[in-house]
């Protein structure tokens, strides 16, 4: 391994150790694992899938995870953890493709790996981690101009969870901002994604249900079922409208003990709006990375606001998980610029102050990751509520 990859290896190792410790400390099913692990067990018993609102790929991952690694906490979560770890590598590779300075690459990877929501989602047996990891893979391939492979990754992301299609929107927006002179690129990616999606949907579904389905019919069923879950049809304490994810700090206990707290790390959440404003400004100044971060943010997050307003679809904070990487890249760019600005300061204490602010922020981010993690004593035990 080259010395330059050492920080990535260290980050991956710390993240993996924490994942294994958290999984080992959590013998019971967590939140929607109650749906997906139970469904996977039913599939293994030959009953077929129960939840037709979700496409088959992520379920297939979970079934395979249980089949090969055992029906126990580590068995359910083996593939999610593996995929979550791959997602960190993809963020690292995306930053490199965006030609971020080396320090910014490491900061972005650090922020993403130790962000609470991303860590939480990649440690439990839900569908999102598969979709997000494949989406990040699609971004990386798109940035490397591998459009057909990118289309395949995008199709697989959408076959893991339909929200994966938002990755395509992010790519389209990035193309609009940065690459409009080459319309064939986005066309190639979109058409290959569509072809792979239609071709693979029935095949993957067959692997679960042993029935050959019509891809259009399967997609229609999934869309109708997913659209039926609206804010008007019932109340879920876990649900919240998309605008509130960035304007209202609304943490939610998936499980209180050990704590699985669905919340964007406060260090990231506080900075979402200012960082995205900064990305707009940098995009106007011609920054490719800022433009991509902005397109990613708009494609995977902002779009939920009109979607929810029009359809009333029930939404959950963890739908923000695909967007975390965009914010982390924006934050890394901002922190890098701050540290660069330090050099221009003539007075020593100002330079020290800037360094302290930047590195103090990163230390606080890491500390929040530990405090919110399942291995830390639950907030429900010691947080005063009166």
């Amino acid at each position, binding site marked *: 391994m080259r010395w330059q990859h050492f920080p990535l290896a260290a980050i991956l190792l710390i993240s993996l150790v924490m994942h294994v410790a958290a999984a080992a400390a959590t013998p019971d099913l967590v939140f929607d694992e*109650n749906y997906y692990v139970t469904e996977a067990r039913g599939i293994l018993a030959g009953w077929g899938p129960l939840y037709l609102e979700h496409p088959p790929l992520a379920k297939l991952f979970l079934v395979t995870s249980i089949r090969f690694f055992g029906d126990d906490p580590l068995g359910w979560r083996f593939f999610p953890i593996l995929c979550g770890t791959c997602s960190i590598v993809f963020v690292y590779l995306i930053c490199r493709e965006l030609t971020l300075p080396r320090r910014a690459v490491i900061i972005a990877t650090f922020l993403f790996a130790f962000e609470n929501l991303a860590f939480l989602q990649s440690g439990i047996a839900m569908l999102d981690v598969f979709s997000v990891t494949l989406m990040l893979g699609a971004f990386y391939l798109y940035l490397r101009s591998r459009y057909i492979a990118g289309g395949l990754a995008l199709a697989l992301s959408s076959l893991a969870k339909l929200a994966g299609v938002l990755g395509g929107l992010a790519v389209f927006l990035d193309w609009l901002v940065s690459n409009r002179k080459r319309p064939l690129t986005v066309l190639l990616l979109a058409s290959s994604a569509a072809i792979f999606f239609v071709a693979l949907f029935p095949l993957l579904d067959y692997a679960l249900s042993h029935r050959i389905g019509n891809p259009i019919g399967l997609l229609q069923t999934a869309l109708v079922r997913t659209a039926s879950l609206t804010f008007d049809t019932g109340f879920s304490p876990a649900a919240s409208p998309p605008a509130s994810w960035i304007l209202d*700090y609304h943490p939610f*206990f998936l499980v209180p003990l050990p704590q699985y707290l669905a919340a964007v790390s406060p260090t990231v959440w506080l900075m979402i*709006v200012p960082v995205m404003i900064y990305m707009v400004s940098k995009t106007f100044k011609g920054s490719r990375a800022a433009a991509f971060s902005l397109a990613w943010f708009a494609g995977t997050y902002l779009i939920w606001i009109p979607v929810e307003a029009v359809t009333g679809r029930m939404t959950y904070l963890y739908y923000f998980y695909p967007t975390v990487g965009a914010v982390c890249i924006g934050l890394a760019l901002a922190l890098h610029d701050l540290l660069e600005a330090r050099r221009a300061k003539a007075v020593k204490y100002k330079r020290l102050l800037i360094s302290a602010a930047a590195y103090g922020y990163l230390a606080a981010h890491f500390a929040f990751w530990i405090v919110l993690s399942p291995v830390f004593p639950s907030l429900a*035990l010691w947080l005063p*509520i009166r």
Partner: protein
Amino acid sequence: MNTKRVTVIAIGALMVALCTSALCSSSAAFRAQIAQARAVMAARDGRYREALAEYDRELALDPRLAASVAVGKASVYAAVGEYDLALSQCNLAIAVSPQEPPAYLTRAAVYLGKKDYQAAIEDCSRIISASAAIALGQAYFIRGTAYANMDNFTEAIKDFTYAIILSTHKAEPYASRAMAYGSVGNYDDAIADFSRAISLDRRRAAYYYNRGLSYEAAGMKPEAVADFRKFISLTDDSEWATKAAAKIDEIQGGG
């Protein structure tokens, strides 16, 4: 002070104000969740009065949680044997939120406590026919228990098998199916299921006692004695420990 600096300070101040107001407005919902978490933990540790108080606090902090609070209170009342109060809380939860499986599941458990097995079976069957996976394993388990209590061991074994498929990591369905196998004289399968239950929960004394009975019935006396001894080492119940000791004497006395 230049314009750029003023702008940065203004944006910073605005952000701080926004974040503070956001945190304040969300705190009631978050505090309600903490109250719920504490109620669940208190109920689990047998501090039932405290659990009920925490549920009341949760409801006061977030009235939208009326259904889940009612289900939680029903579980507490059921745990202390107040089945009528438990039932009224379940009915309240169902009236508030008729589509939610946990209320039916809790009501089925309450019916089990009241020995109204037919009503328990009906509630579980409702969950099973809706394929509500979040409660499916538990529904099969409760319905199996109801069938077993009605001496319908064939249906009980079938339901416990489904419960095992859906809740492989839990010891109780294996132990319940083992009891049902034992009731129909199938001691080999009973021993296998008790062994699986023990591998999932090695501290549960009752599993050793019941496996000991199955070993004894199957004529495997040394294994039965070992299980009764293990039971004595684990149990806090002196009456049952005396019974297990008598079993050992009986087996060893009988050669």
